[in-house]
């Protein structure tokens, strides 16, 4: 009986203990279990690196910063429950989540409840277009990524080969690939490219040869592919099998991961892909960030970790500048963000129907000698573009 009384008297103190340890807590809703957990862990690692950096340099408003992390189980309904839970903890802002199917409902609810949201991973246009005064995204969206690809194609056309004209598009039927394809088609028309192939596939398809063979007969100058990891690997391998050649090959998402080079090997050479961050981009502090991210994850860091790091840096910067930790003050401070980080420069602007969106300069990486190398834009590039992609028989 005595034990129970002792336990009961200690329990309230124990429950309130974390609040004493951490003075300023920011909410995080991340996919730590379920199908998106592999990405969620990478974002988490990036945020932890940022947290260590922020606290080492004095925290926020002189207080240590802490993360109140909630798992969304890769589901929208759990994310909505997590918002309520973090709302009860009275966090000044929330960061989240990876997929647009989760982040979309989050943005809607948080706008209505007037809680500032910093988007962690979702790149879908619809999150910030038309957006809301409570939603902020430091990373790119489908329009920015598609524009980066076409800026790159324009650059190739102007500097290497003015006959670049025909484009073949191949993309999965998920939200991200479809929106990138839609933007791609719009830009192709706007900038005078001719689309000679436009094919979507059901995600999970493993045999792309019939489509690639059809593309081969069209002899496209540019191949614009949007595919997730396994699909991207299969497409790259099968292009060689059917002998599909193109002067420029871009594979979004799939080709951005280090595992793509490991799995595809030499066939991955010359492939271009757009990312928000790369270890060799010409920003100050990149090497140091790369080392810290690598130490934290124990493997080659990607743009996912960098985006996690970026989100928390943006949050801490806004909290530091905010007049108080009231949500409306934090929102006002976020809206006035003007921050340099080793990932990118951040300002939140309204443009082209977007709101609270950072007009981030995305990077084009090309795989050269088994490494991802930044080749575009010119002023941020580490190496020159290798162009044209030689035909398979000549490799």
């Amino acid at each position, binding site marked *: 009986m005595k034990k129970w009384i002792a336990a009961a008297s200690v329990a309230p103190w124990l429950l309130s203990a974390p609040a004493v340890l951490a003075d300023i807590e920011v909410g995080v809703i991340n996919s*730590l*279990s*379920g199908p998106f*957990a592999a990405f969620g862990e990478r974002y988490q690692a990036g945020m932890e690196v940022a947290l260590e950096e922020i606290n080492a340099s004095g925290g926020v408003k002189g207080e240590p910063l802490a993360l109140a*992390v*909630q*798992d969304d*189980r890769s589901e*929208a*309904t*759990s994310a*909505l*429950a*997590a*918002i*309520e*839970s973090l*709302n*009860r903890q009275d966090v000044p802002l929330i960061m989240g989540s990876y997929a*647009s*199917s989760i982040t*979309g*409902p989050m*943005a*809607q*609810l948080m706008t*209505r409840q007037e809680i500032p949201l910093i988007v962690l991973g979702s790149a*879908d*246009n*619809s999150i910030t277009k*038309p957006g809301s005064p409570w939603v902020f995204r430091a990373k790119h969206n489908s329009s920015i990524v598609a524009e980066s690809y076409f800026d790159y194609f324009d650059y190739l056309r102007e500097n290497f080969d003015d006959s670049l004209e025909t484009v073949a598009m191949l993309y999965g*039927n*998920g*939200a991200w*690939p*479809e*929106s990138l394809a*839609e933007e791609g088609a719009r830009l192709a028309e706007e900038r005078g490219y001719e689309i000679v192939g436009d094919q*979507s596939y*059901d995600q999970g398809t493993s045999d792309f040869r019939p489509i690639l063979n059809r593309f081969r007969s069209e002899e496209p100058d540019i191949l614009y592919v949007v595919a997730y990891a396994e699909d991207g690997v299969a497409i790259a391998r099968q292009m060689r099998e059917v002998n599909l050649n193109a002067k420029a090959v871009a594979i979004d998402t799939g080709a951005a991961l280090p595992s793509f080079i490991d799995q595809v090997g030499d066939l991955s050479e010359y492939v271009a892909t757009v990312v928000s961050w790369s270890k060799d981009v010409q920003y100050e502090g990149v090497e140091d960030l790369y080392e810290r991210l690598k130490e934290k994850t124990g493997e080659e860091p990607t743009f996912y970790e960098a985006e996690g790091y970026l989100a928390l840096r943006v949050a801490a910067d806004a909290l530091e500048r905010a007049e108080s930790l009231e949500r409306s003050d934090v929102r006002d401070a976020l809206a006035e963000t003007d921050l340099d980080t080793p990932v990118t420069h951040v300002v939140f602007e309204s443009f082209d129907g977007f709101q609270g969106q950072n007009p981030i300069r995305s990077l084009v990486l090309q795989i050269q000698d088994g490494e991802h190398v930044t080749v575009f834009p010119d002023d941020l590039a580490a190496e020159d573009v290798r162009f044209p992609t030689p035909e398979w028989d000549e490799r």
Partner: protein
Amino acid sequence: MKKHYFILAGLILLGILYPQMFPGYLSVAITLLLYAGWATAWDILGGWAGQVSLGHASFVGLGAYFVAVGTAHHEIAPWWSILMGLVAAAMLAYLWGRLTFKLKGPYFTLSTIAIAEILRLIAINEGWLTGGATGVFIMVLPEPFGLDLFSRQVNYYLALAFAATTVLIVMLISRSKFGYQLRAVREDEDSAMASGINPTTVKLKAFMISGALAALGGGIYAIFLSFIEPHIIFYLLLSVQIALTAIIGGRGTIWGPCVGAFLLVGSGEVFRTTFAEANMLIYGLLIMLVVMFMPRGIVGEPARYLIRRAYAKRAQG
């Protein structure tokens, strides 16, 4: 039977008071009520008529899409679009049943997966109709009687009304002639036919009611999320979750699906906040334990025991 009505009335009363008692826990409650309603609706076909469907996400999706597309693209008020969704779901169930009820056992179940997959592909690829793979945002909703349909409170009461209606319908069915026909068909189609029941008609009716009710919940779900994507809403996993909720709780019982929803959604939320990354593992273990030790479900197992004891007593005189 009266006791069931009393239980329902008591639960509705508790449900009405819940937002006042726990105003910060509405999202979990809405999810729980939606699953309770969907699983109860599923059980009309899966439990009472014995036709296991793994395609009920298509009805949820149909209801959700009618509301989302109706509001976002055609400015149709959600109460009309939900009604349209109900009719469309019943019609879909009729056509679907006509095509597949000739198949028995696992073949019917397989066909439900196939048809749900067809609907998912239509939702993804027919962008002009559905908004395509990128999904649909519900930005504005009308405010009937000054009610903000986006507010959690209103979402909650809609979900409560949906779950209560579904349970009430099942109660009425269970004691009606139709309910006995369903059970007869479930136990032995040939014997049912011999006593003058047309199994196809009975199953079709059950499927239409079940589908229409699932679509009703789907419409509320769309308002609750206010953003839907075909990959999520027509997902096989959602169909499996709905079926699992009813099976774990107890198929062919009035309260089984509700108990299943309480256990699965409630424990899912507790595990999510308590066990971090391990939550799915523990959730899986819980399901396994129930399936191993209570194969007829949490309500089904004790109900069977009670019924058998009653028969035994009667037999003893």
